[in-house]
């Protein structure tokens, strides 16, 4: 039965990890705008014939 102490510890630890993940998401503003991403994901990628754009231009800051 002493296993229960360990199991409860595990379950609370797991729950705490999720709580921390939620805090992190909230702090980085992931819940601030819940609408725009749903539209953004529907856009097609551009088909660029000439050349690939500079990587730095896309992955800025």
């Amino acid at each position, binding site marked *: 039965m002493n296993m229960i102490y360990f199991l409860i510890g595990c379950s609370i630890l797991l729950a*705490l990890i999720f*709580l921390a993940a939620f*805090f992190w998401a*909230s702090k980085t503003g992931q*819940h601030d*705008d819940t*609408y*725009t991403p749903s539209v*953004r994901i529907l856009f097609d990628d551009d088909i660029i014939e000439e050349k690939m754009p500079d990587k730095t231009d896309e992955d*800025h800051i």
Partner: protein
Amino acid sequence: MLQQKTLKTKTYCYHCGDDLPQNLYFYDDKQFCCLGCKGVYQILSDHNLDSYYAYNDIPGQSQKVQSKHFEYLDEPEIAAKLVDYKDEKITTITLYIPAIHCSSCLWLLENLHKINSGVAQSRIDFLKKQVAITFKNEQTSLRSVVETLVSVGYEPLISSQDVVKKQQADFSERSLVAKIAVAGFCFGNVMLLSFPEYFGLSDLEQQFKSFFGWLNLAFAIPVVFYCGKDYFSSAYQNLKKGVLNLDFPLALGIAVMFIRSLVEIISNSGAGFVDTLCGLVFFLLIGKWMQQHTYHHLSFERDYRSYFPVAVTLINDGKEKPVPLNELSIGNRMLIRSNEIIPADAILLKGEAEIDFSFVTGESLPVKKTLGEVVYAGGRQLLGAIELEVVKPVSQSYLTRLWNNEAFFADKNRIKTFSDTASKYFSIFLLLIAIGSAAFWMLYDGNITKAIAAFTAVLIIACPCALALSTPFTLAAVLSIFDKNKFYLKSTAVVEELARIDTFVFDKTGTITNPEAAGFKFEGNITEEEKQLLSDLARNSGHPLSRELVKLLNISKVHPVDEYVEKIGRGISGRINGNEVKLGSSAFIGLPLINSPMNSSVHVMINNQYLGYFTFQQQWREGFKDLTFKLSKQADLHLLSGDQDHDKQILIPFFPRAQQMQFAQTPQNKLDYIRNLQNSGKKVLMFGDGLNDAGALRQSNLGVAVTDNINNFSPDCDAILDGAAFHKIPQFIQQAKDAVKVIHISFVISLIYNTLGLYFAVQGLLSPLIAAILMPISTVTIILFTSIAARLYARKNKLL
């Protein structure tokens, strides 16, 4: 069929969807209504951004009104106030763009870097209509970024008052969400750990009992001291002011529950009420979130600063220099271009001024000003550039003086809600029962333990959780129903205030009249050809009525005018294409007695033959007649207009008591009129739209701004009503009254649950299990009842 379809697509502009004029513009086989629309299309197709038109049909906005100057953005001190962040390399700015409305807008603005390579990143917040742009200082400037936006038809609204919503609000909501997360986390775990207790532990498992108890206690600590701390501080603040609000019994309940659980668990005498405690705080916080959460991102706290420009161009020794508005001082010579707003009272020095004061005075026709005349702040110049000398600083101008009124300094009286009133009596009653039952057990059998048990049990079970939730849940439901019907409230408390209103005050221009539909109506018969003659003649005159007429006829110029004569204030005449055309007052036309209903009639005579007259007719908003009829049955109606009284006769059917119609009111008059009504004990709702109503809206119990585009400027108010929903006002009021009814009923329901709990509590029989069952059940009942009842009433009121 096919032919029909092609015909149909040909009738509107490819970019903005407006009807095409006679002489349209072509590019790439596409038709455009104006050069602006064509220009936007050209820029987009040059940058391979044609997909803009693929995601939506006609995603653009009309580009007919344009020509903006952004030189002031090059001034470092002005720019510094606008940007969010700046270092040597990059600058970040958040701009509010009212034109954002569809996925094409989103796509285009996030691909801004393809047009202006200096833009490093642009991200849109669609609901707030904001775009956050990061650009490289080396490659571009703030001004050129803004001009890029304008060139593709997305002009940002830049004003000295923050139109970009403060981030602060976000933080308070974020911290509330964090509290809910913690409370929910603890609630879930505590429930899990409490289950063994509910089902009973066998002897073998007794060793776990204290372990679970201590764990529960550990979970209760963040719930009480982090999630619930607002209730303690609020109760304390209110007690200091001598007010018993609902937070007092809540804080008391939380404290008592925690202390009793602490004692029981430490002394190993019971399981405590930690599960009920966590559930209570969790549900309360959700209720709080419902109350604060708004479904829209409208700004209700705007003043003249968000209407006025950020900067004004000064002329110094023949050189133009933009300066921030607050540096404008008496004696400065400023340059106002077409379509710009005059920010301070000033004397006209140079140029032709025709100024639209409709937003300030409510006067619907533009006013002509002569050199040397004083032009009041707030007007919009319609003709070319003019030069003026400032005679009063911005804050002391005719219009802006209004904001120096005390009404704007005092915080608007907090709306007294039903739950405030009820909680006062509730708290006193609760304390009496708690003390009474404790005293009973003390005296009856001197059992102090039982007395304390009963005392704490009463405070725990009667903790008005359901009561605290009934108001937010009902009102939040009503708020979302109103939102769907284009009536946007600042907060939930406004609903309760709406139910109490007994006096309605209307502004005239823009509020009860429809600004779009206002215009000329012709009485008589006229052919297309004759219309052409009139249009050609009226085109020569600068008189507001002539200009309106040209706009109405909307025909391009064909014939030149010979022998043109304009008699100021009377009429115009000329020979066009061999026809003698006269346009003007009946005296000018030379006709005897024409029974024209109003002064602003324009009579038409061609070749000495009288054809009829144009009348300038205000169009009331749809359903206005019906609305006044319905409202006047239960409330008093008043009209306050900044306009002259030429519409008085037409308005008499709507406002039967003539003394309740006031014309030629200054903004200050309006404010005072509302105050007088309030002093005679009325609850006043003011409908207004312009800056001239700002004082009255502020002073009234409930200020409602009526607007045809909710993203346009609207003055400080409690609610914004879309013009399209104007006829629904009686339904909104009925719904607000029904909502109050729902709150009352749910109050009774929660009282029944409380009484049921008290039955156990006063006997000292309250077990944690009963509390843990009763609290969630009552909460869920209230949430379901309020949400369903509010929606049923909405259906009855035809709002859903």
